[in-house]
């Protein structure tokens, strides 16, 4: 359902992604690993439609080229990015934000707004899933949330929006084991044969809870190695240096 072909991206004159090829099929979970600064967040942002990057190549998603679409159109098609650094938005309540998001997506799909009762029932169910304190919903988006609460709020939003493709950008970073389990449980509950996930992570520990079908290593703007979940274990044991050397030797 997602086919990335020779995707390049730069900011001003700085080249960040240097030709990425990746295919994700329905029902799959792909993990993307790689050292800091290798371009993981850039890849995620380009997929979600951030316009500060100049992108070329093609990103085919459910028959459309994502690169031609606005971020909101991508969201309506089912792309969801759980941000590495969720933004605080003072003055916009989490509830109002979610309701607006859901109804904007429904509107783009030609559907009527969700009725209040259904919305509230979903909020209740999904916040329970990620063990998010219901009181947070009346607060401004992410404002004053702890690091863990912000990450769980991302997964909560994902659960509310039920995307086709969930991209998690280091959602596990900074989480303790309990929070990690909650996040993983959220993803595993949402996962089905009709959606897919890209899990960007630094550590293999999240992959003990969310079992990936494929693991890719991104380094210096390119995927330098792909494998199955064993690759993640190998990276954990040996670090990235051997791969870097391999990549640079080419």
């Amino acid at each position: 359902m997602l086919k990335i072909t020779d995707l390049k991206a730069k900011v001003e004159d700085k080249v960040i992604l240097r030709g990425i090829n990746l295919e994700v099929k329905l029902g799959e979970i792909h993990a993307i690993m790689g050292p800091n600064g290798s371009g993981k967040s850039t890849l995620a942002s380009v997929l979600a439609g951030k316009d500060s990057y100049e992108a070329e190549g093609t990103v085919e998603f459910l028959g459309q080229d994502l690169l031609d679409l606005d971020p909101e159109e991508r969201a309506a098609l089912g792309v969801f990015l759980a941000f590495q650094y969720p933004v605080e938005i003072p003055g916009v309540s989490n509830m109002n934000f979610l309701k607006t998001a859901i109804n904007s997506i429904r509107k783009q799909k030609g559907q009527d707004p969700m009725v209040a009762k259904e919305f509230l029932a979903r909020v209740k169910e999904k916040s329970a899933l990620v063990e998010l304190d219901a009181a947070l919903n009346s607060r401004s988006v992410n404002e004053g949330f702890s690091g863990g609460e912000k990450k769980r709020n991302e997964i909560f939003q994902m659960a509310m929006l039920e995307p086709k493709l969930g991209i998690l950008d280091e959602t596990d970073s900074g989480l303790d084991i309990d929070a990690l389990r909650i996040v993983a449980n959220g993803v595993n509950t949402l996962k089905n044969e009709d959606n897919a996930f890209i899990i960007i992570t630094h550590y293999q520990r999240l992959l003990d809870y969310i079992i990936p079908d494929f693991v890719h290593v991104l380094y210096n703007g390119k995927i330098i190695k792909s494998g199955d979940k064993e690759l993640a274990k190998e990276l954990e044991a040996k670090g990235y240096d051997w791969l870097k050397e391999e990549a640079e030797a080419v």
Partner: protein
Amino acid sequence: MEDLLLKTNDIGFVGDNSLLENTKVEALFALGNLKFPTRKDEAWKYTSLKSVQNRKFVTGDLLKSDKLEDFKVADMEANVLVFVNGHYSEEQSTILENNTDKIVISSLKAALNDNNNELSAYFGQTGSHTEEIFTALNTVNTKDGVLITVKENTVIEQPIHIINITKGTDIVAHPRNLFVAGENSMVKIISSYETEEGSSFTNSATEIMVHKNAMLDYYVLQNESVESVQVNNVHVIQKDNTNFSITTITTDGGLVRNNLKIEVDGKHCETKLYGLYFLRGTQHVDNHTYVDHIDTDCMSEELYKGVMNDQSTGVFNGKVFVHREAQKTNAFQSNKNILMTDEATIYSKPELEIYADDVKCSHGSTTGQFDEEALFYLRARGIDETSARKLLVDAFASDVLNNINIPALKEKVEARVDASLN
């Protein structure tokens, strides 16, 4: 300045033996000494009124408004006083509260005819008509305005809405208001300024007297055409234990200068000043505020927020003066701005001048760009760009808007704010 006087060529009631004659004569004499401000004057450094001097403004007739329903606040039961080109239109006004044991709501002219005692007692008592040139001009030139006197121990539930409309090309109007809140009274007043057609120079002057234990909330809505100029002077005197709040919302207009002066001349007072300005094109809005803490144990809180689009200019100059005797004053002041473009400008100068030693005061000013990260976050969740911008701007404005204690009015202001984004 003399030019302006000659051009407007109308010296109202002077010489007609009225109650206000002395005040008018004082103002006329003062005009001999007061100089028309230029950018060399510190208080006018960023705002030039040259265009006013060079334009020929004319007085306008009392016309019928065809847009009154737009100017009113929907679903708000209120006493509505309508002025067109500075003249009171009794026909278009609706006064619900006629019980003069509770309140007098009247045009100034009618109050003069009735020899209203409070009018003669309080008109000009703030002294602004001899100190401030535009108030002096207003005093000499005014055709009419509003007198509101709330009697002691009276709560007025329905707000009083004064709608000042201009209709015509380069119309000059000098609306003049006097509000007196008696001891232990409570009232909410709204003044809106609208252009129905064409352009105007509106030179408004309002005096407000808040007696012991009284509460007065004042809302000023400025929404004139981009060809229009407005100078708006509000001078308030607060006595012991009073609460006064003013919220000034500027959503349209070409050149707007607001002078707000509040003398907190009593103990245990609360003073709140809120402002919101949403500018675009080449609009220029200047808010000058002055809070004078004269006595002890008072609190003042000021929050002005602005969004500047295109090539617009905002000016904020807020001064809080704490006299040596005004111990235990708490004064907070804040000005926050968003510049939407590189060509928009804000001059922000919060000032504290403190002579008492036992006080808590703070002031601050921030100016930032529009939060593009937040915009992307919202769009990535499916919210279209226009709605996302609106959501963020509403959020920015919310801590000012949340202080509007009349729900219907708040709704109207929110709609205006949203409209000014497009």
